[in-house]
């Protein structure tokens, strides 16, 4: 699946908020078609990295290129065109609370793809089905949805324009294990079906073991190591060791090993 072309190139990125330096000389590549998991302790700037890449946060220094373009240097029209090629699932969903689920998904279709309202809502129903939401959720408002349904609806909105990259910020946080596993499978299916590149910020070890092709560890203000799970888990670093070889890490490893055997 993975071909060696980098869709996202982060070079020498530095992010600082006042005296507090979050990233320093950070380098990262995201390849086409891969699912890249970003892990790191709380406060190591995982979300800040995501925000820097999608252009919501101007880096203090360094460059971020998405599809070979530096978002912050583009004119508003060109930037909007590039932004249509990626979808973002924010940590708490960020669905527009004044619109129904269906309208949330139809909005980018109406605004960017130039569809009529009926066409857009028809297509939005397909995205709902793909994201695994029940029909009954279509005309509900976000405040009457459960956490798992909000995540699915937000994913459906992120996928509305058939993006090439999706950024997922802790997609399984706050979901019960069954929903979380189903969400993992959903991402895997969609990646295979749509040829997506997935940038996944997560704390969920099961997600890492089940779906990620590569894992990048953020530590000491940079990407400490990036590679497949065995490489990363073998890294000689106290934090990485605790993370992957702690009780939860071992359990997730065993679970994924059992899963591979059964298949």
């Amino acid at each position, binding site marked *: 699946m993975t071909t060696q072309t980098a869709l996202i190139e982060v070079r020498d990125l530095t992010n600082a908020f006042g005296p507090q330096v979050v990233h320093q000389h950070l380098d990262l590549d995201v390849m086409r078609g891969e699912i890249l998991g970003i892990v790191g302790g709380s406060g190591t700037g995982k979300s800040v990295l995501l925000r820097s890449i999608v252009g919501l946060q101007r880096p203090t220094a360094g460059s971020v290129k998405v599809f070979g373009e530096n978002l912050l240097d583009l004119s508003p029209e060109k930037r909007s065109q590039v932004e249509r090629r990626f979808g973002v699932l924010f940590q708490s969903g960020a669905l527009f609370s004044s619109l129904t689920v269906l309208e949330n998904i139809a909005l980018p279709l109406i605004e960017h793809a130039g569809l009529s309202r009926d066409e857009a809502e028809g*297509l939005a129903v397909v995205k709902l089905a793909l994201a695994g939401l029940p029909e009954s959720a279509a005309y509900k408002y976000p405040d009457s949805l459960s956490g798992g349904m909000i995540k699915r609806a937000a994913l459906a909105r992120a996928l509305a*324009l058939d993006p090439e990259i999706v950024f997922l910020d802790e997609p399984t946080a706050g979901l019960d294990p069954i929903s979380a596993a189903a969400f993992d499978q959903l991402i895997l299916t969609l990646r295979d079906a*749509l040829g997506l590149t997935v940038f996944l910020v997560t704390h969920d070890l099961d997600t890492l073991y089940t779906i990620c092709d590569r894992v990048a560890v953020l530590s000491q203000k940079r990407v400490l190591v990036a590679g497949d799970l065995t490489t990363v888990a073998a890294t000689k670093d106290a934090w990485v060791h605790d993370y992957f070889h702690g009780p939860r890490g071992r359990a997730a490893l065993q679970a994924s090993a059992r899963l591979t055997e059964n298949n």
Partner: protein
Amino acid sequence: MTSVALRLDTAVTPAQLFVSGDWTLPHYSQLSRDVARMRPQLDAATGVQLAGLQGLDTSGAALLADLLGAERLIDLAATDPSLNPARQALLNSVGSALRTYCQPEKPKARAGLADVLAHIGVFVASLWERIAALLGFIGLVLETLVRGLFSPRRWRVTSLVSNIEQTGLDAVPIVVLLTFMVGAVVAFLGATVLANFGATIYTVNLVAFAFLREFGVLLTAILMAGRTASAFTAQIGSMKANEEIDAIRTLGLNPIELLVLPRVLALLMSLPILTFLAMISGILGGAVVCLLVLNISPTMYLTILQTIEVQHLLVGLVKAPVFAFLIAVIGCLEGFKVSGSAQSVGEHTTSAVVQSIFVVILLDAVAAMFFMEMGW
């Protein structure tokens, strides 16, 4: 894109449908028209050739599902040799997702007139509930106030002082500026109308009476309703939406004592002071106009002012605490009514401002009649 995306060849049996071109989002409108045109001509026996297919994304796959049916699409994904694995997976996922899916039922939009009547009905029915809720809340606040009065340890002095700064001190410039200008306007009005009777000197009395009895307190209260009631609702409302109120409750604390009392007390102290400043400022505005337009010197102006009895000042000032209490209580109560969404915060903020201005003006009208009948 090729001009014809769908071509039906009826020369052979069974008929063959040729699908070609880009089936992607930019061509969606055109394609959906083609699909609608072609669908009635197909039957179960028609063969489907996907070899000419160029671009394909979920919207294209959805249209194919629309054209052929989800079952057929899944079959096709499994059997058509011209599809690469990624396409197969895409058609299969879209087909499987849509197979068990029925079109969600749109909630019925009500007819115009019925909707209006229903709206009026709901409003009238909720009016009593709102009044009951307001009275209940006032009771709750007073009860908490009295309980807290005797245990100084529970006085929230820091919060109170910070609220006084926000609602009182920060509002001084706008209150003073606004009443100064209204004072000038009233004086102009008096000068024009009273000139006809040769009684321009009474402009001083007009301005003084107006500001001492009514305008000082009314203008300040309306400003506070717009500025402070909305702030209280937004502050408490976003705390409610963020479950902070629930957190306060589960920590065994009383949100009324923690959030409402400091705000109510702060406005109770600020509004009378602001009212007094408003009166002074309005009278000053009148004095400037009197000096510039009517040549009434400040000394003369003050001399006339001294003939006005102090009870008029008291009539104005006595209303201030009542207004303050109601504005603060309505603002806080609307904050507690917020549910979940950002939309709800907006609705209740609007409602708080409208209600508090309404209550202020209504009470002021009642008070004006009362004071007049009493001869005060």
